């Protein structure tokens, strides 16, 4: 890629920091050039987030219908699977799977809820109401 072809399409990262690309100058020598982003990859990132948004919306519906506990919503929101959530909370994966049932979840002690709240970076009260504050 030539230095002048390094794309400068402002993307999510470009607003915070420019990134380094190696590109050739007029003599063919490689130099480090900064880029603010490339729309091809910004769009690829958008696709990933659109998929995630769909999964979050589907999880929310499941919780509202009583088919799953709010943990499912937060797992999708935080892009976690049971293995990651088990890692952050210290529960076993089979325990996390049990807690995904609304009946079991509703009887959890505050102490256990606190562990989930910390893993998701929310307050215990927000856990039950599926409230999220952007961070």
């Amino acid at each position: 890629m030539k230095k002048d072809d390094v794309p400068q399409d402002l993307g999510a990262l470009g607003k915070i920091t420019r990134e380094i690309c190696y590109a050739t100058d007029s003599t063919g020598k490689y130099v480090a050039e900064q880029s603010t982003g490339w729309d091809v990859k910004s769009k690829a990132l958008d696709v990933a987030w659109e998929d995630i948004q769909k999964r979050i919306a589907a999880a929310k519906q499941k919780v509202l219908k009583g088919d799953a506990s709010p943990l499912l919503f937060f797992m999708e929101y935080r892009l976690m699977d049971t293995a990651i959530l088990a890692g952050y909370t210290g529960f076993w994966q089979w325990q996390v799977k049990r807690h995904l049932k609304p009946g079991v979840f509703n009887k959890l002690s505050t102490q256990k809820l606190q562990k989930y709240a910390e893993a998701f970076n929310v307050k215990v009260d927000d856990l039950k109401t599926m409230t999220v504050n952007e961070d």
Partner: protein
Amino acid sequence: MKIDFEHHQGAHCESGVTTNLLRKSSGGKITEPLAFGIGAGLFFAYIPLITINNGPAIAFRTMPGDIFNRTCKSLGIPVTRKKFSSKENAEKYLIDRLNEGTPVGCQVGVYYLPYFPREYRFHFNAHNIVVFDKVGDNFLVSDPIMETTSILNSYELERVRFAKGALAPKGHIYYPAKNVSITGETIKKAIKSGIKKNVHNMLYIPGSFAGVAGIKNTGKKIKKWRDKLGIEKAGSYLAQMVRMQEEIGTGGGGFRYIYAAFLQQADVYLPGNQLQEISVTFTKAGDMWREAAVHAAGIYKGRLGSQEDFNTMGDYLLEIAEVEKQAFKTLKGLKWQ
């Protein structure tokens, strides 16, 4: 504390950290492209059966940790590395190193990394930063992806050093020994061994998941994605491939440009070996990867979508595989001058 450390931005986190940690002892001789090449950073793998973020597990570079390890080993620099089960011990060890004036590399997860834009925060646990100072409760951090240094308080740093999930860092900390002199001769030897290792990784790993065989195999698979996955999911898969190829930390072109830059710099140490010419082939490979990404974007943006478009997509990878195969075969056949 005031530690003598210079932050320089890099294209890729691990080669960037390696370069920043070796800057003092190498007198700036170990540039990022050299670290990437000596560490045999170029790779391709499509790991079947597992998915990452509900998409294909595709990598364009070597396993996390390899670049730092190989670069230091090839340059004859002893390395200290440690993992921890206790968060307290991990922090104490880090602070002790800072107190003795040693900047250290830390493996971290990016999901709870506060200075990263939210769009880029996935549960990716093989990011690398240097911690080089502590002021009050704040650690000063050099993240090669960022233009300037960043700050993490002790809770934030602990959280990313003990991120959970695949490749969990477990407080992983590493640093090279100081006061090892790196001579031109050492660098020459290291370049040769790095190229040899990379030739092996791209040409001779058995099976069809890795190296140029992996690129070819992925090209063939892509042609079947439309029927097998449906147009929407196939588009998401391609988007994921492009993200692995182009996202921060690649320098674009799936790391191929960094490797081309490496060969150019290697040519200065080992002239008369046509490394300059071979570098041009890797630039071409990088350009082809980017062209392929533009075509892929046509599909995931919904502008393209016929089976013919997927065939073209697969053919891009088949062509790239051929170009990279020839390039590595030329490197393999080098009779060093």
